[in-house]
């Protein structure tokens, strides 16, 4: 609002200055991410900037090395399972919190969002001691469950936001027209809040896909996720391979964000953009 007011009222010099500042901030934010991309096309054995020669050898290296591929597939599998679990739990929690009026709702909400603020290292220790007697340490499903708890707040936040713009009278109308509780959710509530759910699912996937600290605690030599593999690889040798893997990870994350944005844009277009 104030930026808009500034744009409308300020003269040309002020607008140029504002644009320059905005550009600098944007560059500062994306620079660390963007710098690895040219590095990944390096032709040499060592990381140096700018690269002396160009090649795709480090990409070839990634796609032909079993350890990299195994880790990548494992991370994708864990992230998918974690995202599904987090989406179901986070959506259910958001619906419950939006509907029910009970004392202590704020406390329950804060509790459910706590994985966002509790340091990962503390969660990791807790998860380790909780998993040990259950035999979940070292299993991919164990990592997925732990990631689901970390990722569910992203779903909760997104679905809660979607529900804020949802008219509860639509559910009354559906029930009045004869729909059961489940039909009402499936045919009315869910299609309308779907963009929020999908955005939450994408965030949950990325949160799990990137996560290393908790995974490090409960990993086993046979189940090394991609972030852990990258970490280990960096400790052993600093080769442009790491830049190639990083670029691929960035590519995946960015495409997922675009998918989420597309879903949201389509939903807005379909509802006429007035809600």
């Amino acid at each position: 609002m104030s930026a808009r007011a500034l744009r409308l009222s300020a003269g040309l010099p002020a607008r140029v200055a504002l644009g320059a500042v905005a550009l600098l901030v944007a560059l500062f934010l994306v620079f660390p991410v963007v710098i690895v991309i040219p590095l990944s096309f390096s032709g040499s054995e060592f990381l140096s900037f700018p690269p002396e020669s160009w090649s795709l050898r480090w990409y070839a290296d990634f796609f032909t090395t079993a350890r990299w591929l195994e880790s990548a597939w494992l991370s994708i599998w864990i992230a998918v399972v974690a995202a599904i679990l987090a989406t179901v739990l986070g959506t259910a929690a958001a619906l419950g919190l939006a509907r029910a009026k009970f004392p202590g709702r704020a406390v329950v909400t804060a509790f459910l969002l706590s994985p966002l603020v509790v340091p990962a290292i503390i969660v990791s220790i807790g998860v380790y001691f909780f998993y040990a007697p259950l035999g979940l340490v070292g299993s991919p499903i164990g990592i997925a469950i732990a990631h689901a708890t970390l990722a569910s707040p992203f779903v909760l936040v997104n679905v809660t936001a979607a529900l804020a713009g949802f008219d509860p009278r639509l559910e009354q109308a559906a029930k009045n027209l004869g729909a059961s509780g489940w039909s009402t959710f499936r045919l009315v509530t869910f299609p309308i809040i779907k963009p929020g759910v999908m955005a939450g699912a994408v965030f949950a996937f990325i949160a799990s896909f990137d996560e290393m600290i908790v995974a490090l605690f409960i990993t086993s030599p046979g189940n090394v996720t991609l972030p852990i593999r990258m970490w280990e690889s960096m400790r052993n040798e600093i080769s442009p391979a790491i830049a190639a893997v990083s670029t691929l990870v960035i590519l995946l994350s960015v495409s997922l964000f675009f998918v989420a944005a597309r879903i949201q844009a389509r939903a807005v277009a379909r509802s006429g953009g007035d809600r």
Partner: protein
Amino acid sequence: MTDPSRLGAPVRFEGVGKRYGRSWAVRGFDLEIAAGEFVSLLGASGSGKTTSLMMLAGFETPTEGRIAVGGRTVDAMPPAKRDIGMVFQSYALFPHMTAAENVDFPLRMRGRPKAEREAAVAKMLDIVGLAHLADRLPSQLSGGQQQRVALARAIVFEPPVLLMDEPLGALDKHLRATLQAEIKRIQARLGLTVLFVTHDQEEALTMSDRICVMRDGAILQVDAPETIYDRPADTYVAAFFGESNALTAVPEGPGAVRLGPVVAPWPGAGPAAGALEIAIRPERIAIADEDAPVPPAHVAVFATVRETTFVGDRRVYLAALDTGEAVQVNQPLADLSGGHRPGERVRLHWATTAMRGFVDGRAA
């Protein structure tokens, strides 16, 4: 859609009340609606009309009393099982479904065969004049078109009871009249019981079998339109429907009241003492030259014309009685000649049967 055996169900509210926090939105609501009857709820904003509908539809639980549909108490019945059609005040159309999909929804929920559903939806959209917009989303429809989709959706499954919360509020006059007639036709053909909320007294008068006037959560009067108009139970109802003049009278022995300088026969008992408020509709008062003869059984008073306005089919006079009280007279125009000018002395007269008396606001 033409099965004549399916008729409306009777509805009965017994001492129903709804309390929010410490205030009652509806209190002591007693209303019996016969099968196939068209009853309008009329009242100012916040008088409890929507709350009453919501309790019948099952979205609000009465704090006290009970509600029965078709002779069966519905208090413990979930909304989806009540089979009551409802047009919400805000339409509540599903934004992700087309007009046709919205109308199809209740049929789909009832598991009707696809061919039957398609035919019913097409027919219903045709009735509300939206056949050409069947594939539009609600956001691509005007307010009035959305309202018609909501109406079609509430009627298409032929519910025995139909609730409508100001279903025609957003429509222009012409479309409003068309749909009023359409609603009446569908209601009559299917024999539906209808509970209809409106702000518009004329709409209530023309459409209803009976009108229920509400104020502050309570029922003031339930009666046929003619009775409501002609014999309002209190001054609030009298003022709500049409225009009315209020004159102060005092009892003058048995069977008579004094209105300023004149004594008028008064058929009712009248108050033992104190003032009586007399209400007379402006169209029941005749305006004549000062020396014109007065018909028998008429009360006549002298007055001075203050203002005159031509309103097409009638002339509206504002006149001052010699007591200082202002009186409005609506003179139907058989011909445009004549008319009285401001400042002119005139004689106003009306049949004694045109007077309604109120004591402390209640009909006497």
